[in-house]
């Protein structure tokens, strides 16, 4: 059956009866060299991306004197959690971490609740104003967020949203929405419209067809998009700084108490590591979906 051969990506191994065709199977010297060059390139690029991460890691776990030592050692002799522990135990860090997680989850939920329907509409319907809507949400990215925070803060106080995690989550949702909408729409484009129509002919209403068919199929992609939103929220500084007073998220705390005002360097490294660590995990779990997420955006 054709499907079975399709599921077998590798060609069959040459059997004994089949004489080996030397030219076809034996890699030539030039081919091997070319392959090696490709590996060398891949490894070099990997080092370019990994070394800075490694450096921030050893800086965060070096004793304070080592941070100011010169020349610095690339292979540290001693690692210590001293700086990390001070950072970890500093007032506000743990609650800021928790706040970041809560805001991230709220942002994720809101942006899916608000953004996914729009993404679905863009994917499924050809309606008047569709293209202008797409342009509009793309251009929102062109506005520098820093400036937005000032009027937003005033509005927030009037709306009783000031210094609440909800408020930060709303602001983050607004920032994440353009991406969420475009990405979810590309995910729904990836789910064939006919599947939903089939479900409708089989007794589903629109909502049921969506829930029974489109949603389960879109779920992995939606999860990736959601976590992307989470990371966006995790990394956002300005809105979080200006819209909160006591309920700081971690990056806002880092900016207001560590980076901006020149806290000692070791703390800055510790904070940097804290900011980077979740992204390592995020990319690790989501790397399979990243491509699918962005693949259809271009269509």
């Amino acid at each position, binding site marked *: *059956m*054709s*499907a*079975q051969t399709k*599921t077998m990506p590798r060609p069959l191994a040459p059997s004994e009866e089949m004489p080996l065709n030397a030219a076809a199977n034996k890699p030539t010297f030039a081919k091997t060299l070319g392959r090696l060059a490709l590996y060398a390139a891949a490894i070099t690029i990997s080092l370019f991306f990994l070394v800075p991460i490694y450096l921030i890691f050893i800086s965060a776990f070096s004793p304070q004197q080592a941070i100011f030592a010169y020349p610095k050692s690339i292979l540290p002799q001693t690692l210590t959690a001293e700086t990390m522990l001070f950072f970890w135990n500093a007032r506000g860090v743990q609650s800021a971490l928790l706040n970041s997680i809560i805001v991230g989850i709220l942002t994720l939920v809101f942006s899916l609740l608000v953004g996914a329907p729009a993404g679905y509409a863009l994917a499924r319907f050809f309606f*008047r104003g569709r293209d202008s809507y797409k342009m509009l949400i793309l251009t929102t990215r062109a506005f520098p967020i820093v400036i937005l925070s000032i009027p937003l803060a005033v509005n927030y106080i009037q709306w009783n949203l000031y210094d609440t995690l909800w408020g930060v989550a709303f602001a983050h949702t607004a920032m994440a929405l353009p991406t969420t909408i475009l990405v979810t729409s590309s995910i729904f484009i990836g789910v*064939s419209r*006919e*599947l939903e*129509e*089939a*479900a*409708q*002919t*089989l*007794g*589903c*209403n*629109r909502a*049921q067809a969506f829930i*029974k*068919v489109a949603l*389960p*199929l879109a779920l992995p992609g939606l999860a990736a998009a959601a976590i992307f939103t989470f990371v966006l929220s995790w990394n956002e500084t300005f809105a979080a700084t200006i819209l909160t007073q006591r309920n700081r998220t971690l990056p806002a705390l880092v900016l207001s108490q560590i980076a901006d005002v020149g806290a000692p360097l070791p703390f800055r490294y510790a904070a940097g590591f804290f900011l980077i660590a979740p992204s390592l995990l995020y990319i690790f779990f989501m790397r399979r979906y990243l491509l699918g997420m962005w693949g259809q955006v271009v269509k």
Partner: protein
Amino acid sequence: MSEIRIQGVWKYFSKGKVAALKDVSLTVQDREFMVLLGPSGCGKTTLLRCIAGLEYPERGRIFIGGRDVTDEPPRKRKIAMVFQSYAVFPHLTVFENIAFGLRMQKRPNAEVKQRVNNAAGMMRIENFLERYPAQLSGGQRQRVAVARGLVMEPQVLLMDEPLSNLDALLRLQARAELKRLLQQVQTTTVYVTHDQIEALSMGDRIAVMENGAIVQVDAPTQVYDYPGSLFVGGFIGTPPMNFLRGTVKSMNGAFALNLGGQPIRAALPANVQAGQDLLMGIRAENIEASAQRSPDAVPARVLVVEPLGSHLLLTVQVGETPIKVQTRMDFNIAPDQTIYLRLEPKQVRWFDPETGVRYDASGSTELK
């Protein structure tokens, strides 16, 4: 009783700028196998989707089993549909795919199981029930899609080019099988295809569509033999019908058609005037080619000779017009030779060159 009646349906796309269906009316009898045939973009799929309820027409009504379903969503129309892509749910097993509609109706498990097994047996996929669609071949998926429709025991079965994604050999096989199956279940069926062989071989009747309108509804042989228009004649049949343009001229008190200087005697439609232009349509198999000149025969120059195994297909030039002619395999001919064509008078059809509409041949004037 599940007749489908379509009355004056209009459907627009692109914000009303394009009419995809123009005043379409069609009645599909109970248990009839109706084929919607036409080139891509003619609106046949749109019409099918209007019947399914996946599109809503802007004007006109649709009745299924005498009930006005125009404003009803698909799920209330008691229809089943087989999609071109099959639309087999990839996240469900074959069993759950087939059971999907029954589950939506909240049928008891035992009944679901029994009906799914029946349908699967009918489609000979009972061994794949636990598989996921990704583990199936295209042909198997197609059967799942049909089984999923049949299991619903629908009043109407709608099929949108269900065979177009199969390769040629499989398609031949599936065609016969599908025909047998549909004869067995006796459901009113609307079947969309652009493949005229499929249409001719399967349908009880064929509705030929062009530019969003139905141009002819007839039994397959009728559509083939008496195409209602130039378009239908040109669309149906391999090779398509030949068309030759000529002028009516008076000849001994009767009329003949002047074809590139060569008068042809054939049964002209009634009420023609001398000097009037006519289009003559005739199929390749109704032209007899001969190497010998004869008084009624039209001379033609051979352009291409194609041996097709069962017969030869010649492309010849009559006047300025190339036409197709079918001859026996042993006809000895080479390009650039001149042959003489005799047209089977009973098989000649006449068309108005302006409108493309076929003249009703009933009152045709016999030439002496």
